[in-house]
């Protein structure tokens, strides 16, 4: 395989050389700091490079979109973060954003406009589907996933919140894998348990953890790979697999990682 030199230009560098990217890759806090999700960020950047997409990131100029604060009821912190992000995005004249986090996606897409930030925002599942459809990412001839059973866990902020159900499934179908659905999927998809600020606190008393309830359903499909499209779902599903002591037989991957694997990146 020919050596690819991966580039990750920042908006500041682009601006300095008077260039405009096709799209801004919004990395998000999990994609920047969480060890597991950093691998997803890297996988997605490799795909963008190999597809020849002219993209940029904000680097250290990016801040949390404010989603966890807003869902937890702290509107002040949300709006402070949102306003300063909008200032940065508008300073660079950003028009189009892609992000691997459904929470960032929802906030940037639906909640920034009312605060004055108007961008075309895509989730990476939608963007990957576009790249595949346009022939910029080619997956044919790959044997990596042939005969493998993959189940897709819908993220609430992608699915019910924004009605994106098919894009991630199209990406998985392009892998030539055997896609199996859980009983609760699409509009009926069961939450992983992390949204609405739950990621940042212990669950309230109950008889079971939500991610365990969900992982039992996922494992029940007989899939050896659980595909996710959200950093929080990634944490919850990975913990669920550990809880069931299935780390050897069941793997949790993000869509971008699966595409990168199929392409040998």
């Amino acid at each position, binding site marked *: 395989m020919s050596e690819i030199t991966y580039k990750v230009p*920042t908006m500041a560098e682009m601006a300095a050389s008077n260039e405009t990217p096709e799209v801004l890759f919004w990395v998000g806090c999990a994609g920047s700091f969480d060890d597991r999700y950093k691998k997803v960020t890297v996988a997605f950047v490799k795909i963008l490079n190999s597809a020849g997409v002219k993209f940029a990131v904000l680097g250290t100029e990016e801040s949390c979109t404010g989603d966890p604060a807003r869902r937890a009821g*702290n509107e002040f912190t949300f709006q402070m973060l949102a306003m300063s992000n909008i200032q940065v995005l508008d300073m660079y004249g950003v028009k189009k954003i892609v992000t691997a986090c459904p929470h960032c996606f929802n906030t940037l897409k639906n909640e920034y406009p009312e605060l004055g930030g108007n961008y075309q925002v895509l989730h990476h599942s939608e963007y990957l589907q576009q790249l595949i459809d346009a022939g910029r990412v080619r997956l044919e001839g790959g044997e990596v996933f042939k005969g493998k059973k993959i189940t897709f866990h819908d993220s609430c902020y992608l699915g019910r919140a924004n009605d994106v159900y098919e894009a991630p499934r199209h990406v998985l179908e392009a892998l030539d894998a055997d896609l199996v659905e859980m009983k609760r999927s699409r509009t009926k998809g069961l939450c992983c348990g992390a949204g609405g600020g739950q990621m940042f606190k212990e669950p309230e008393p109950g008889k079971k953890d939500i991610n365990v309830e969900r992982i039992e359903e996922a494992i029940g499909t007989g899939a050896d790979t659980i595909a996710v499209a959200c950093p929080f779902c990634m944490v919850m599903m990975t913990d669920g697999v550990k809880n069931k002591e299935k780390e050897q037989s069941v793997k949790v991957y993000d869509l971008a990682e699966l595409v990168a694997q199929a392409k040998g990146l």
Partner: protein
Amino acid sequence: MAIIQQILFLVALGVVAWLAFRRVSFIRNTIMLGKDDDRKDQPGRRFGIMMRVAFGQKKMFDRPLIGFLHFAVYAGFILINIEILEIVLDGILGTHRIFASPLGSFYSFLIGFFEFLAFGVLIACVIFLIRRSVWKVERLQPSRHREMNGWPELDGKLILVFEIVLMVAILTMNAADSALQDLGSAHYPKTGDFLISQWIKPIFSGMPESTLIIIERFAWWFHILGIFVFAIYLTYSKHLHIALAFPNTYFARLEPKGEMKNMPEITNEVKIMLGLESQAGDSVVPERFGAKDVTDLTWKNLMDAYSCTECGRCTAACPANITGKKLSPRKIMMDTRDRLEDVGRIMQANKGQFVPDNKSLIGDYILEEEILACTTCNACVQECPVLINPLDIILQLRRHKVMDESQAPGSWNMMFQNLDTNQAPWKFSPGDRFNWVEGLENKSANS
């Protein structure tokens, strides 16, 4: 005799109209206690949603068999109202089956059709009662869902019994009527046998005319008075959904489900803090952030509460509830309605003025533990057949707890602090945000 019946009927009709007017005014006034929320945009789209979801019951068909049975009751209810019109006219004018002679043979067909619907309602209600009491559908059981204890459980069963009794009355009335026709009794014009009640008629064979008249009159009065009582009853019951489903779906949110409503009063503050706007003299500081009581919610949240028929589809889909947490979206709606009715009663007792009773929606009705368990996954919003949004209420209550009372779980306060100082929910330095790039092998220092 006829004139006495007419007078009694007019009195009953007047009493029912007065009670219904008073109750509907009460409901309307309490809904109007809610805050403004403009839901008048895009009337065409809204009308389409109402036609599909309320009129066409689209979401009920998620479960096809139950959807079909529910549709049978609904269609029966709407169409049998045409017969009620005849009964009311007969009652006022002292006539009997006033539509029979102008409609001719079509009349028999029409009554037959209504009987078919009535039979459908009867069967569906019996099945629903069995589902509640024998099969014990989980989402309807008080043993599993504490909000169903007492009145809500009884209410659910009473409505079904009411409907079954009313349908039996209408069929008995028609059978007795038909038997009287066969005897050639005066005042009972020939219409021919009716589709369903002809099977009940043999019970009445051989009875003298006078007994049959008593049975027919009793069934007639029992049926129409039953309808009157039921009409008032439903305004106090979860059954109010049959009316409110229509406005409630019309005024439903059109934005993507993931979008939370902005708080413009905070936007001004933030703009001033960031130096984007100078201190404006006319900025109004709200009396309260978020919602503590029902009067802090919007009128649509309150209409949602009255529209809830406690079917529990929301709760059955709620990940928190499924895993044994205290949160139940249905309880959020029921508590909101209970609180609103309490507030309304206090106002009624005090000449329209609310006298504080040291209670509030959050704390006395809904517990903090409940709203903290929500993952904002929108499953409850997705499930509701009449487009109620429990999540919107939960989030407004959270805003109050966190911003007004500064009561957030310790780990959330940590998260807020990290966001304020590091612009990330975890304790990482903002300067390290781009370090992930080191994970890229073969990375060239850019350009």
